[in-house]
């Protein structure tokens, strides 16, 4: 074992001696019971909503900043009825591709192949990838780095998109993946 590993092990063993009190545990457990009593019905309703996964994969992961303290990335989706839906995205990186995943309610998800239902929409100095008029993803920053390739997934169906060009003159290609 290297010195660094040994030190780390030693530090770990040292800090394992620090424990929260039994009283603390009782308080935290009691919080759960109290919360369920007050909000039980609401929790039940939410768990009945089918969780549709919206995953956006960005190869150029430096486009999105992820604070070192672990702040989540929050995007705002525009639902079909015009509501702004803030969505907290989880981030993971696999094979050099960064995926952002969040969950939205079933009533905000279209049901068919979206390949022909996507377009870019410019609003002032922002460019959006508009997905079937349901979601708008701000991809303005992506254009500054050149062609922007990414993925999104809705209800288990994956799509790859490629956006290039500028705010004024851009191209979009979306293909459903097998």
């Amino acid at each position: 074992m290297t010195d660094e590993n040994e030190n780390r092990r030693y530090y770990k063993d040292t800090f394992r001696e620090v424990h929260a009190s039994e009283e603390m545990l009782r308080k935290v457990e009691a919080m759960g019971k109290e919360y369920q009593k007050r909000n039980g019905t609401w929790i039940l309703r939410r768990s009945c909503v089918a969780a549709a996964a919206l995953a956006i994969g960005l190869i150029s992961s430096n486009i999105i900043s992820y604070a070192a303290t672990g702040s989540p990335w929050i995007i705002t989706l525009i639902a079909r009825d015009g509501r702004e839906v803030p969505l907290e995205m989880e981030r993971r990186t696999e094979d050099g591709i960064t995926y952002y995943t969040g969950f939205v309610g079933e009533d905000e998800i279209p049901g068919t192949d979206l390949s022909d239902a996507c377009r870019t929409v410019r609003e002032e100095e922002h460019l959006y990838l508009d997905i079937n008029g349901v979601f708008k993803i701000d991809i303005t920053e992506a254009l500054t780095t050149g062609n922007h390739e990414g993925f999104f997934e809705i209800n288990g169906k994956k799509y790859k998109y490629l956006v290039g060009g500028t705010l004024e003159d851009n191209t979009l290609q979306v293909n459903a993946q097998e």
Partner: protein
Amino acid sequence: MEDREYIRIARQYLDTVYRVALSSCKNPQDAEDIVQSTFLKLLESNREFQDDDHIRKWLIRVTINEANSLWRSFWRKKVISLEETLREPEFFELEQSELFWAVQKLSPKYREVTYLYIL
């Protein structure tokens, strides 16, 4: 989140959350406030976790965020001496005790980084 699942997570990760909280602030009272805020966030999140590792990382991240919020809070309690209030954990070796206090005396920024490295 079901009550049973919440209790399981609380019992499994309370110590981890408490240690991160304590490493971020000067006294155990603040650490306990942070712990409670973190678990309240867990109750409110209705998040679907992939596995226990995901839960652990999420809890740590939220704990750090809550600690940072506490630091920025206008009504933050007056800081009191760590030695006056912290129940000293019992260590098998004197060196461990010295190590623990040495880390606790670091500024919060460095203490937090040190603790996260250890984790």
